[in-house]
């Protein structure tokens, strides 16, 4: 591994991160520390900056002020740092974003082969191991369009895991799914959590937050408003905006 990585540093640290889209400020002084093995759920109303915040962590978006550190390595313009960090950080998207022109197996082996220069046989072995873990090994030779939404999302999780990341980011992984498929995806995520994978998960699945999260982060208008363990967060939220949000969530 690269000597820059500091194994005793927090997994992820955001220090006063701000981000603008042109003149619109999407993040304001966001600070957050996620330790190794910790599971953090981020929630908040639409447009509050949840996606923007986690997309900054692997540099899909660029922040303009403050610092982001992954295992002590600061995210800068430097390509080397960005590539190093992206290898450590896996991401799962709301829309799955599988590669439609490749089979499931090829979806999983592409990055290990190209980025980690793994021989094909070894990459396929690794891919089959993760496909088995998400219980979808028998679909390996199909194309993404032949799978259901829930199956596609499990493939997307396996694809990210094939790079053997230290952290997994999830951006509303179940929001695009039909209700009957949500559980199969959440089950895979719960298993990951039980294996002490460090996870940051944007989700409105409050049941998941309650059982899996170590801490819940509430964001509103680009700011972190409240951070608390789930029991405390749901039982007696301190901030007025949190109360309002939870009240609305419970009504549905």
């Amino acid at each position, binding site marked *: 591994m690269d000597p820059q990585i500091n194994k005793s540093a927090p997994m992820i640290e955001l220090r006063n991160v701000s981000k603008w889209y042109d003149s619109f400020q999407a993040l304001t002084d966001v600070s957050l520390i996620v330790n190794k093995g910790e599971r953090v759920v981020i929630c908040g109303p639409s447009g509050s900056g949840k996606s923007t915040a986690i997309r900054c962590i692997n540099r*899909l978006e660029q922040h303009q002020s403050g610092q982001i550190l992954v295992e002590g390595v600061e995210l800068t313009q430097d390509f080397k740092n960005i590539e190093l960090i992206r290898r450590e950080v896996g991401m799962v998207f709301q829309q799955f*974003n599988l590669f439609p022109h490749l089979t499931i197996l090829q979806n999983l082996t*592409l990055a290990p082969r190209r980025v980690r220069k793994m021989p094909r046989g070894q990459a396929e072995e690794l891919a089959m191991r993760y496909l088995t873990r998400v219980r979808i090994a028998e679909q390996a030779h199909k194309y993404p369009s032949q799978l259901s939404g829930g199956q596609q999302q499990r493939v997307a999780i396996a694809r990210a895991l094939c790079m053997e990341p230290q952290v997994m980011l999830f951006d509303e992984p179940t929001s695009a799914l039909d209700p009957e498929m949500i559980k199969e995806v959440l089950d895979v995520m719960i298993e990951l959590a039980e294996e002490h994978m460090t996870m940051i998960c944007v989700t409105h699945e409050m049941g998941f937050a309650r059982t899996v999260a170590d801490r819940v982060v509430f964001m509103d208008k680009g700011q972190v408003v409240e951070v608390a363990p789930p029991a405390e967060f749901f039982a007696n939220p301190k901030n007025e905006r949190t109360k309002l949000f939870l009240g609305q969530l419970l009504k549905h």
Partner: protein
Amino acid sequence: MIELSLTDILSFLLLAARWTVFLSAIAFVGGGVGALLLLLLRYARPRFGGRFMPVYVEFFQDTPFLLQLFLIFFGLPKLGIDVSPLMAATIGLTLYATAYLAEVWRGCVDAIPRGQWDASASLGMNFVQQMRDVILPQALKISIPPTVGFLVQLIKNTAVTSIIGFHELTKAGEIINNATFQPFITYSIVSLIYFAICYPLTHWSRRLERRLTPTGHR
């Protein structure tokens, strides 16, 4: 009026059709290379290339091709550069093809959803890997019908170069017609030759498109 046998007419036209094919091929290949250069400039140097490409494309799309040809054929000699009809036709069609292909291909790359860039970037792939393994294979597939469609346009547009005296299929048809005064027969044959060149292309593009659509196992 001169009596010409059908074989004479046909062989005269077919010989000229070789120039139509040759000119189309040169302009298509030249235009393809030019378009790739424009796109490379656009993505690698967005500040300059991103501004230059639209200006170039707009100019060639929003002025008549005939005028572009006149500018080259009559304009360049005024600047002391002598151009033959072949030269003018080649330059004109190549510049024209560059503009259209650049625009078509840009549209195909831009049509690939942002999620594909996000996902490949999040897996640690660099720009070249993203392009080669994720974006271009998908863009290539959707680019085939419009690219071949444009090639057919290009072949038909070579007829315009007959106006500056370039001896291709349409010009040859005109010569035959002037000699035989049989416009109906002459131009029917000319049309059929164009059809015989273009139809297989259209047909082939449909087949290729179907083959590149992933449905089952490969």
